[in-house]
């Protein structure tokens, strides 16, 4: 398994919203975003950016982007991924929205996708990235700290 600190990581839209809601069922969302952001190389695909914009006001979005700019590295992808990359994921059984995300992450070489949605594309074979919950991601960062100390 590649080091999470040295890999591109994407967070599903609800990770941001649960963190800002301080959702009691998923406390690791807040830990990851509020406390561990500076350790992550974040890749932000257009689909997730648009979903966030639909959920947050311009001012809230500005604050979130300001914080995201403090991550270890941040790459915003404002271009839609090629439809040629989306279609194969749909053919493999993914819903269109999930297919778009998968195509984005695949084309950007993202290694970890953080989502509480455990069944995200899990029925599809040969996912090119690993789906982790926020709790698993936080634990992985702690484990890597322990190994490197």
């Amino acid at each position, binding site marked *: 398994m590649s080091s999470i600190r040295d890999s591109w990581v994407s967070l599903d839209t609800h990770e941001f919203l649960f*963190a800002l*809601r301080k959702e009691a069922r998923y406390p690791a969302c807040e830990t990851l975003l509020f406390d561990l952001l*500076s350790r992550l190389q974040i890749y932000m695909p257009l689909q997730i950016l648009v979903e966030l914009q639909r959920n947050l006001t311009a001012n*809230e979005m500005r604050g979130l982007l300001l914080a995201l700019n403090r991550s270890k590295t941040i790459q915003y992808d404002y271009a839609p991924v090629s439809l040629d990359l989306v279609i194969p994921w749909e053919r493999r059984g993914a819903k*269109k*929205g999930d297919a*778009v995300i998968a195509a984005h992450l695949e084309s950007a070489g993202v290694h970890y996708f953080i989502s509480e949605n455990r069944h995200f594309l899990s029925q599809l074979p040969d996912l090119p990235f690993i789906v982790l919950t926020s709790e698993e991601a936080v634990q992985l960062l702690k484990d890597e700290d322990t190994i490197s100390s």
Partner: protein
Amino acid sequence: MSTKNTPVQVTLKLPGDVYERVAHEAAQEQRQLEDLLSNLVMEGLAAKETVRNILEHVAEQYQDRLAREGKRRQSPDEVLEELRHLREQVAGELYP
């Protein structure tokens, strides 16, 4: 009397490559290694505090708005369900 500003001596273990970088930087800036390390720790703490502070502020704004819109008590499952619909809607707009 407060002891908050009294220096405390600590022993620090660093990976060799990190030590070399810090030592190189200290030499370039003609500073004591201890002084530079102390500053780096303080800067690291300040950076972390800033991210949390920024997001605490956003969270407060967001939660207040959700409360005004009657959405603060939405369960996580309801939020996920809304987002599932939104995902398909946005994908449909981006790829009509």
